[in-house]
Each structure stands twice: as C-alpha cells, then as structure tokens.
C-alpha cells in the first residue's frame, strides 16, 4: 500500500468542485492534467514488447488455423475434396461447407445474411474451407492439399461498368446495391442565378486497410463458454456478432482485446475467420489461433471504395455559392459495404449553399467488400469539393481562402440544426496565418516564373467530419482503493490513439491523483462494461465524459462518508487536494485515505454513464490543412515540403497524442492522394495485382515532410459534453489529398482530378497537357 500523500499530485491545490447529486458537473475552466503533453500510460509496454497483442497470445495446447480462399473473382464451388488434407500430419480440425458444424450457420454483415460457406464465390478471397493443425506450416500444407473444383464465371470489378447492362450480375437482383438521393432548395434556380457555373468529373482510387497488426484471433472453449482474443476496435461488437451467428447468450461469449495494432475501421467487426476459429476450436477441443496473412487481408478485410464523382457548382461574382449538383458511384464490393456512403456529406454540409442536390449509387462488383476506412466517404468527397472551390475562386478572381471564409455556414445545413460550435472559420483563418499563406503563394509564383523546371505550389482544403461528438451508451466504473490509488474499468478499446492515457488523465484531473497510480482495465466483455467500438472519432467524446461522471460519483460517496467522520453535513464539504474539507469551517478536514468508510470497505466504487447529447444541435469537428510542395516537371517527381493541420476538435485532451493524430492523418492522406491504389487485373482475371507492401505503396518516411505542424484551434464547447472534447482521429485525414491537389494545380496549372497523383500520373498529365 502506498504511503499517504504520495498518490495525490495536487498538494492542496483545488480539484474540480463536486457537483451535488443530480447536478451536472461544471465545464473545466483550468486543468492541471488534461491537455498537457502526457506520454502514453502504456508506452513502455508497447515499445519494449511486453504488451500482449492477440497475435502474441500462446495458450497451452494451442493449434493454428488457416483458410482456403477462392482464387477467382467469380466462381462456383462444384466440389470440395478434403480427404487428402484430413489425413495429413498435425491436422486436428477441418471445416468446409459440407461439414455438419457449418450447417445452417449464417454470416451477417450490414443487413446482409448468407451462408457462412457460400458455394457462389463473389470475390477473390471468399472462404471455401479451413483447417487447424499443430503448426501453421501443417495447416497451410493441409489447405493446399484440399482439392476444389470451381466453375469460373465472368466477373466485373470496375464499378463504372457495373450498371452498364453488359456486366455480369453479382447478385440475382442486379448490381445496384442502393441509391441515395438528397435535395434542398431549388438547384436549377441556383444555377440560373450564378455568374459562373463549373462542372468536373473526379475519381479516387481504392485504398486498402493495412494496419500493422494483421486481422485475426485466438478462440478457446471452456465448457460452453467461448473466449476470443481478437485484434479489434470493439470487443462488444465482436461479442454480439459471434453470439448472433453461433446462437449463444452474450454472457457466454467473452471477447478480450487489450492491445491491438491498428484497424482504421476494418476491425469494427469480426470476420468469418473469427467464426471459423471458434468452430474449429470446438472440433479440436483446443484453442485455435487464426491470424490472417498480409495477402489475405489485402483481399477480404475491407477497403475505402474507389469513387467516380461529378460535381457541378454555381457561384456569384461576390463569392456566394448558388448551387451544387453532385453525383457519385462507387462499389460496396461483393456484399453491402457502403460504396458511396457519406461521400456527399461535405457537399451537403461544409459550405453555405441553399440549393443542393446529391445522387449516390452504390454498386456490387466481384471484389472484397468495403468496410469503413478512417473518415469513410469524406476524403473522396473532399477531393471533388475542395478542388471545385479552388476552381470557382480562380474563375471569379478571388483568393481561395477568401471564398471559403465567405461561405461559412451558421448551421449544419445537411441536418437543419445548429452546430454547438463551429471552428471552421478559425481553422481556415488562423491556419492560413500560421502557415504564412500569402507569402507562400508569392514565393511559389516567383519560383514558377523563374524558368526552373522545379515548380512550386501551395494549396489548402477545409473540412468537417459528419459525427465526432460521441454519445451514449457507455458505462465506466472507477474504484478508489483505501490507499488512494485508482482502478478505471471501461469497455472501450484503445486502438493506438491513446484512449487509455486520456481516460487516466480525466480520472486524475477529477480525483486529484497522479495519472500513474491509475490502473486501467479495458476491452474485455467478461470484466468491463459495455461500450461501442472505437470508431467514428467518438471514443474520447463518448468515454471521457463518462469517466468524469464515474470519478464524480466516487467523490460524492467519499464526501458522504467524510460527513460522518467530520460531523458536518455533506453539502458543506468538498475536495481540497487530497483532503475533504468543510467549506464552513476549514479546520474540519480529513485525508481521503483516512475516511473511515473507505478504510472499512477497502474500496469505493463509482459508476458513470454517458449522458445525452445536446438536443437539436450537432457536434462536429472542423479543420483546414495547408501544404507546400514542389514538382519536377521533367520527371514527374513530387516533394511535399511542409504541411500544417489546423484542427478544431474542441478541448485538447493530450497534446502529445493529439499531434500524433494530426501527423498520422496527414501521412495517410498523402497515401490516399499520392501513392496508394488497389490494382485489379480488371480485363483478364479480376484478381488483385498488388498484394504485398511493395506493390501496394504506402508512403514511406521519405515521402512525408519532416516539417509537419499541428495547430490546435481550441474552442470551448461546453454544450458538446462535460469535457468539451470532440473527435479528432478522422478529420485529420480528410482534406489532406485535396490540399495536395490544389497545390499541384498551382505548381503545374493542371487539375488532377484522378487520385492518387503518383509520378506516373503526373508525368502522363504533364505530357498530355491541361486536358489530358
């Protein structure tokens, strides 16, 4: 047990007032812990390798799973013969569509429900059979020994061809997965009013999720209870999917996901692999480890769908936007995956415009199903909208920044309700100032007149993110032990963003204890409370207020107990550092750790719930990013010189992890804008060409600028939630690529409407001229 006093950091300084029961806590004015640069609470474990990720799990008698996947973009399985494989050394479980274990099991994803083993394989990578054996090598040898007869069928993998009528049908009901229409105002009238009307087509590439840790799990049965260690963004989501598919009570499915090596949206749900691991673990009566190979993850765990877009926009000479008409098509993949989901949101919501029409058509193709990818839809929509804004500005002779500032909406037009706060204007204005926009433009123009073949450009893009306010449900439990140390228990996953650290900081702030005496238990459906998956940039705004509420619940109970010790009514008491003090008579005071109720019980348990979001208001993060770059017009090589991200995500909870999100988001945006694209062999086999980290090109350290700056635009937002924090993890990657495109335009005079703009595309367009 710790010595008295060493646990508290406050040394008599105030800790936040404890609200009376039933009262909401006040918005923090000043903070002692929250907002500071705080290294991750688990940094040592992560860096030293002692952190145990699902990939590291080793259980006694554990065996290894491997999956046989359909090698064709479109085929029917005629026959599976596993006779040879079954007899191979080490094989302890084998499952195919014919196995009784698979009988009647349905795979469910986003409203789709179909057999776990579907003989009609609609994408390369569909599951055909699975094996578990004593070693991974034996498992793979057995997989290769399974003989499958396929009927190979014609495919369509180009979403632009899916609806032409010439393409084979992915599903019986056709290739249209869904249509989404939106309209407000009078679009035709808006265009009639405009002084300038522009129309342009845009295209973005398919970006693959490539988190450092592969997708996978370990499954283990103890009687009728299943335990899964899954590399996941949300253990409760895994629990609910598995219990649904296997027909088990939630209480019997324990999912643990303490550490995980990234997901970016692709690990919001489990995969068929999770179900197969559970089934084979039962067959073999041994724990099964099923970690996919990198090649498999490139095929079947999701993607940011490619989008083909058309945007028509009208503007008056004074910069008033009069109309947007947006159309978009994109592929869900083989099954519903949100091929065009919220691609149009920025057109609907970002800039003031009364007349807007959007039409999105989501289609099926014979390729892996899309999954949410960091800010789904938004970087694509931004690619169109932000380039169009620059074009409009140029046509009416206005600075692009000025045009944007002229069109800051006062309400969320897509919803018709106000934002709690909008930092859009500040992000653009203060970002531009800090970036030195005017000087940078001047410098670029001068260089471009100099005759050098190295051209320079600066560009910017702004954005908001459709959600990012978080919300209920969430339950957090905080235990205060009799030595003053604290245990924080929450269901949410820390997907590498630093969630645990921020929650420890919130608890520390509220209780006055040092963050490092807080032990966190999290992401375990067996021992922690229900939480939604970490995604949508909602983890901090969801969990942080809940943690705060739980801490306040602890404080209220301690005060109640201290009232007995001090012989003073609880309403007169509050925290002062590590003591409870009577406000009426300051001589009445007692150390928290001396409170007899606490000493007797050994622990006080506080429970916090996430309260509701403000009624009829929208909570959104905003941002603007700025970039400066150079283009070698002889070779097409490009070099990004610097980037600045000005982000309004409400209160900065931890400046260190905040900046990391900004830098990481920019890096990913550079990948989307300049290096990454899924290449399918569309005209021959429909198969994936680039299925490794060399052919699928993520940006390397040398492709991103050393000079990256994060400029927090911190605006108090007490209405958002009791911490004032909004989401950050997704807006950071939304306007990156469009800022690059706008800079490339300044450098070359060419509009790059097709992403990514790699040196091949740059060289092609330099040769083809402006129209290309």
């Amino acid at each position, binding site marked *: 047990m710790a010595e008295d006093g060493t646990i508290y950091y406050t040394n008599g300084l105030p800790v936040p007032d404890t609200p009376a029961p039933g009262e909401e806590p006040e918005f923090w004015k000043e903070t002692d812990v929250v907002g500071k640069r705080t290294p991750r609470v688990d940094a040592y474990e992560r860096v030293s390798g002692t952190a145990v990720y699902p990939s590291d799990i080793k259980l006694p008698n554990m065996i290894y799973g491997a999956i046989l996947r359909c*090698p064709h973009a479109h085929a029917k399985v005629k026959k599976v013969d596993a006779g040879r494989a079954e007899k191979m050394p080490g094989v302890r479980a084998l499952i195919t569509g014919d196995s009784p274990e698979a009988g009647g099991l349905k795979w469910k994803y986003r409203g789709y429900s179909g057999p776990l083993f579907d003989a009609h394989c609609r994408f390369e990578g569909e599951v055909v059979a699975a094996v578990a054996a004593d070693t*991974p*090598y034996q498992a*793979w*040898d057995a997989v290769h020994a399974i003989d499958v007869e396929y009927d190979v069928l014609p495919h369509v993998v180009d979403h632009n061809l899916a609806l032409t009528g010439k393409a084979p049908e992915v599903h019986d009901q056709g290739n249209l997965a869904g249509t989404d229409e939106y309209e407000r105002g009078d679009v035709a009238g808006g265009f009639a009013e405009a002084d300038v009307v522009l129309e342009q087509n845009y295209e973005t590439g398919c970006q693959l999720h490539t988190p450092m840790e592969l997708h996978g799990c370990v499954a283990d049965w103890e009687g009728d209870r299943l335990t899964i260690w899954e590399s996941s963004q949300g253990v409760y989501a895994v629990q609910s999917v598995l219990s649904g598919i296997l027909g088990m009570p939630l209480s019997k499915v324990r999912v643990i996901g303490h550490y995980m090596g990234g997901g970016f949206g692709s690990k919001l749900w489990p995969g068929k692999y999770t179900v197969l691991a559970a089934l084979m673990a039962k067959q073999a009566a041994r724990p099964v480890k099923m970690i996919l190979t990198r090649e498999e993850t490139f095929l079947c765990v999701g993607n940011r769908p490619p989008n083909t877009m058309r945007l028509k926009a009208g503007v008056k000479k004074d910069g008033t936007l009069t109309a947007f008409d947006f159309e978009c098509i994109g592929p869900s993949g083989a099954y519903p995956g949100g091929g065009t989901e919220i691609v149009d949101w920025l057109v609907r919501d970002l800039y003031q415009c009364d007349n807007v029409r959007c039409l999105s058509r989501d289609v099926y193709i014979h390729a892996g199903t899309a999954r949410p990818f960091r800010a789904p839809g938004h970087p694509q929509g931004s690619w169109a909208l932000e380039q169009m804004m620059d074009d409009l500005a140029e046509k009416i002779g206005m600075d692009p920044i000025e045009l944007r500032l002229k069109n800051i909406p006062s309400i969320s037009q897509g919803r018709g309700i106000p934002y709690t706060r909008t930092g859009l204007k500040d992000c653009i204005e203060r970002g531009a100032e800090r970036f030195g926009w005017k000087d940078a433009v001047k410098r670029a123009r001068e260089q471009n007149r100099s005759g050098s*073949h190295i051209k320079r450009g600066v560009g910017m893009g702004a954005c908001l993110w459709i959600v990012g306010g978080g919300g209920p449900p969430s339950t957090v439990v905080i235990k205060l032990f009799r030595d003053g140390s604290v245990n924080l228990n929450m269901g949410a996953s820390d997907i590498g963003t630093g969630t645990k650290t921020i929650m420890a900081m919130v608890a520390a702030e509220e209780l006055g204890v040092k963050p490092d005496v807080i032990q966190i238990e999290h992401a375990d459906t067996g021992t922690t409370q229900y939480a939604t998956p970490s995604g949508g940039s909602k983890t901090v705004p969801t969990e942080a207020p809940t943690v705060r509420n739980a801490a306040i619940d602890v404080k209220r109970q301690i005060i109640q107990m201290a009232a007995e010790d001090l012989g003073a009514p609880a309403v007169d008491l509050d925290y002062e550092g590590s003591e409870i003090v009577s406000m009426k008579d300051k001589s009445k005071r007692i150390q928290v750790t001396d409170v007899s109720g606490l000493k007797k019980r050994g622990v006080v348990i506080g429970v916090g719930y996430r309260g509701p979001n403000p009624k009829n208001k929208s909570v959104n993060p905003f941002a603007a990013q700025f970039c400066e770059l150079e283009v*070698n*017009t*002889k*070779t*097409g*090589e490009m070099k990004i010189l610097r980037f600045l991200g000005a982000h309004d995500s409400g209160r900065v909870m931890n400046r260190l992890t905040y900046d990391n999100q900004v830098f990481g988001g920019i890096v990913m945006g550079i990948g989307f804008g300049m*290096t990454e694209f899924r*290449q399918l*062999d*569309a*005209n*021959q*086999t429909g*198969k*994936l*060409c*680039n*299925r*490794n980290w*060399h*052919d699928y*090109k993520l*940006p*390397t*350290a*040398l*492709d991103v600028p050393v000079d990256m700056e994060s400029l927090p635009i911190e605006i108090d937002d007490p209405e958002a939630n009791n911490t004032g924090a909004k989401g950050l993890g997704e807006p950071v990657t939304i306007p990156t690529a469009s800022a690059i495109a706008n800079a490339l335009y300044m450098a070359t005079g060419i509009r790059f409407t097709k992403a990514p703009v*790699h*040196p*091949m*595309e740059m*060289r*092609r367009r*330099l*040769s083809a001229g402006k129209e290309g």
Partner: protein
Amino acid sequence: MLPQFSYVRPETLKDTVKHLNVPGAAAHAGGTDLIGCLRDGIMQVNKVVSLNALPDLHGIRETADGGLLIGAMTTITEVSESPLVRRKYPGLAQGASEVAGPQLRNQGTIGGNLCQKPRCWYYRGEFNCLRKGGDNCYALDGEHLFHAIFGHDRICVITHPSDTAPPLVALGAKVRIIGPEGKRTIPVANLHVSPADNVRAETVRKQGEVITHIELPRPPENLRSSYRKVRARRSWDFALAGVALALEMDGDRVNKSRVVLSGAAPVPWRSQPVENAISNRRLNAETIEKAARAVVEGADPLPGNMYKLDLFKGLIEEELYTVSRELR
C-alpha cells in the same frame, strides 16, 4: 508459407558447386529475394545452399592495376558506403544507395542483387505466366504501369529490377563465375538474358554456377559516373526510370560514354542512341536536347506505360544538365 527444403552451408567453393549442381538447388546469399520467392512459390526449390561460410567472398579490395574486386557476398550497404567505391566509382555507390531501403541494403548482397528475380506483379502473384512456365504474358494485355518499353519483343515485359547492374554495366564491370566446368569471367553487360533469348532465365548462369566476384577496371582519367533513379515513392521501391552514366570527359566535351537505363527493359538497357548523341560532343543545350530525343528511339511502349517516354527524356535532360553545370 515456405515449402520444405534442406539447408547446407558448405565451406569450400568446390562443395558449393557440387551442392548446387542438382535441379532444385538454390544459392542463398542475403536471402532477401530468395526467401520471398520461396514463400510466393515462384520457383521449386528443395535445397538451399548458403554462401555464408565461404571465405573470400566478402569485402572490397583494390587490385594491382588500380581497379576493384568486390566479393559477391559484400552487402549493398558496404558497397554504397565504401570510401574506395565512392572515390573511384561514385555511380556504383549511388546505385547501391538507391536499392530498396536500409534494412534490405544491410542484408542483401551485390551478388544477389545481380541475380534477383523480376518484380512483375503477375510473376510474383498467383499467375502462371510465361516466365513461370505458363503460356502467356499477363502484363502485355493487362496491367503494365511499371513494365518495360524496350527490349521486350512483346514476349515478356519485365524491367530488370537491379539498381547496381546499370552502373556496373556502364563502368565495364565483369563477373567471375565458378561452376562445374570451372571458372569463367564475363562482362556484366552479358550476364542478363532477354526474353527473346530465353524467357525462363534472368541470367546466363548454368546449373551449379555461382558468382564469386565483381571486377571493376581501373577508372579512366576524367571518368564521371553517376546513377539517378526515379520511383513511385522515395524509398523501398524499384526504378520507374533510372540512368547510369559513365562519361569520360575532356573539359566540356564527352569523349566516350556509356549510358545504361534501368526501369526500361528486361535487362539493364544500354542506350546506344544516347551514347551516340553525346560522345565526341560538347555537352551544350543542343547536345542535351538531341540526347533526350535519342533516349526513346526504338522504344515500344504499351498503352499503360507511355508516360515512360517523356519520363526518360526528362531524366536524361536533367542528368546531362547536372553534368554540364558541374563543368562550369
């Protein structure tokens, strides 16, 4: 997953050759390419013969006539950082420093670099293409953004992946080979095989043959060598287009030249048209413009890699202007 294979680590060249002189045996130098090939099932290998225990194959030393002898097992990093190489053949040091990324340069060897398999994504993927023993080239009618514009004869359109081979060819280097039939020394320029000659082989090595050393001749007076590489991203990537120059200068005149392209053809591609355009000429704007036009003479681009034409033009122009600026 890797297939099953046996592993030997002979200590003499004689034993090495003996072990390698059976079908299904492969030499293992740094393993950076070999292991990937085995994992992807590109070649059928049942015996891996390590070259690591062989004495004599490591290191760089100066020869009596003022040239260099580089052991085949010398790492790419050693080559790129060697003061000797940097002083005498900066083009080779640059080529080596442009290979892959630091980890691969530390592990990969120069011998392995010359013998590596192509990087065509069909070849490395699950496609039984012509080079792997199948009937057709998928890249020709398929996705060939990164493929060759020269020397492919529309048979197989790989580009040779090595960044050290072009400078070695430009510098007139030779490889020493030992095999079941004894020793031979051939120019690096003759090491690689065009698809028209044999689409299933990348080098002229026969079964059981290993490269032991690379010989560089004494650099001529006023030799100026360099290597410049353009790629889709700035590290860990093969050449979209590259050029190794070995120019013998006399003031601003180019007396003799060797110009070898990477990212261009199934073999390191010597560009005689560029050599002709600059040899015995002053390196002025007119010469450079001619050379840039000459570089694409005889090119046979495919619909998806037309961009390489202007890329090579731009590259030659930029490189030659760099040389001419240095002269001032």
